[in-house]
């Protein structure tokens, strides 16, 4: 049975695992955006927090993913369900690119523009929402893009703790020494990463100030 036949034969399962994968990536990226962007903004306001926050996010990135999934198993509530563990781990990994790009994006806004805005009597909030964030948006979306693409790849490992997703096929294929089954997981995951990269890349371009 070749790959095409395998996928056709198992199309409901392929679809199910793809949707599971999308769910893991989607929810974790959303959570990371909701946490990472405010944190990125925060450290532009309080430079003291800069080192601990970026350092913390950096350290998380250095933990091997399989180990992080393992560490979270005994956690209360989170550890009860595999998908919760997977979502938390993926969220943590996605934080660094989001915090960093938000910070760099805002810091990269032309000083003269900020100075003019402040000099004309914009409040800190007005400066943030009307000037800094719109001008940093391209860089922030680039962070979302990096985080999403990394997430799609990392989420395959979530299958190791039973959280589902396209990693199921990869691990199953490895156990069966069957390349077709591995590819049935790897190819949709790669396509998903590619699509995320292209669409967010397009958005990044559209939202960047010229």
């Amino acid at each position: 049975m070749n790959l095409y036949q395998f996928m056709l034969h198992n199309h409901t399962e392929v679809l199910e695992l793809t949707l599971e994968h999308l769910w893991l990536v989607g929810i974790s990226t959303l959570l990371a955006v909701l946490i990472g962007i405010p944190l990125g903004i925060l450290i532009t306001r309080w430079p003291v927090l800069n080192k601990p926050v970026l350092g913390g996010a950096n350290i998380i990135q250095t933990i091997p993913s399989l180990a992080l999934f393992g560490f979270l198993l005994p956690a209360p509530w989170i550890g009860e369900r595999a998908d919760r563990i997977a979502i938390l781990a993926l969220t943590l990994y996605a934080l660094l690119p989001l915090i960093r790009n938000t910070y760099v994006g805002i810091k990269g806004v032309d000083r003269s523009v900020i100075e003019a805005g402040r000099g004309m009597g914009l409040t800190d909030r007005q400066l943030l929402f009307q000037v800094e964030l719109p001008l940093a948006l391209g860089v922030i979306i680039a962070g979302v893009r990096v985080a999403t693409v990394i997430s799609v790849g990392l989420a395959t490992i979530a299958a190791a703790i039973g959280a589902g997703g396209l990693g199921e096929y990869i691990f199953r294929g490895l156990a069966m020494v069957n390349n077709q089954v591995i590819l049935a997981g790897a190819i949709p995951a790669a396509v998903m990463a590619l699509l995320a990269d292209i669409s967010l890349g397009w958005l990044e371009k559209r939202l960047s100030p010229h």
Partner: protein
Amino acid sequence: MMSQSDSRPAIEFRNVSYRLPGSEGRTLLHDLTLEIQRGETLILLGRSGSGKTTTLKLINHLLAPSGGELLVDNRATRDWDVIRLRRMIGYVIQETGLFPHFTVERNIALVPRIENWPAHRITERVDELLQLVGLDREIATRYPRELSGGQRQRVGVARALAADPPILLMDEPFGALDPITRAELRREFLDLQQRLRKTVVFVTHDLREALSLGTRIALMEAGRLVTVQTPAEFLTSTEPLTVSYKDACGTDF
């Protein structure tokens, strides 16, 4: 708002100094005492690093004095609600600081918009200002990157004038322009100032600009005010720094 009958100066520096933060902070401005009258154009003249821009930024409280007292409209800048203070002071800088993601119209309307003016009044005001600074109505929908340097600077002036502030701070506004556009904008500025009678504090290192635009010229050097003279006094002055300034710039005035 300022009352017109008030004869006190619009801006008053009383022994103001400014030191960079930190225990070893360098002092950028020493003991400045200076009164700026309502409706005059006071030029801050001096070379780079003489403290001109620092002096300007103290007025709209982008910097806070380290010593002495600075009064704007008879009230110390540190006692002002800083947002209110800044909204009655127009601010024009060399790099224009136009918001690249806003159209010309939105750039000009920035302060009226955050002050919640009704929409029709904002539109009227934008039209009026474009006309005032000699720009075509049709550039209102363009973005700053689509304008020439001279046009951008005019938009910068229009934006600073939007909410009709009694005070205008200008930090080398024409510094980045070619000589012809520069001369043109100077003429327009004089014309504008004749009509509007704002209190203007104008930073430049260009003597010609200082002489043609200023009511009075404050000459600064190394963070200290050296002299305050009218352009006529400046030309005949024998004060050493004034003389060396005139020598450096040629004698054809």
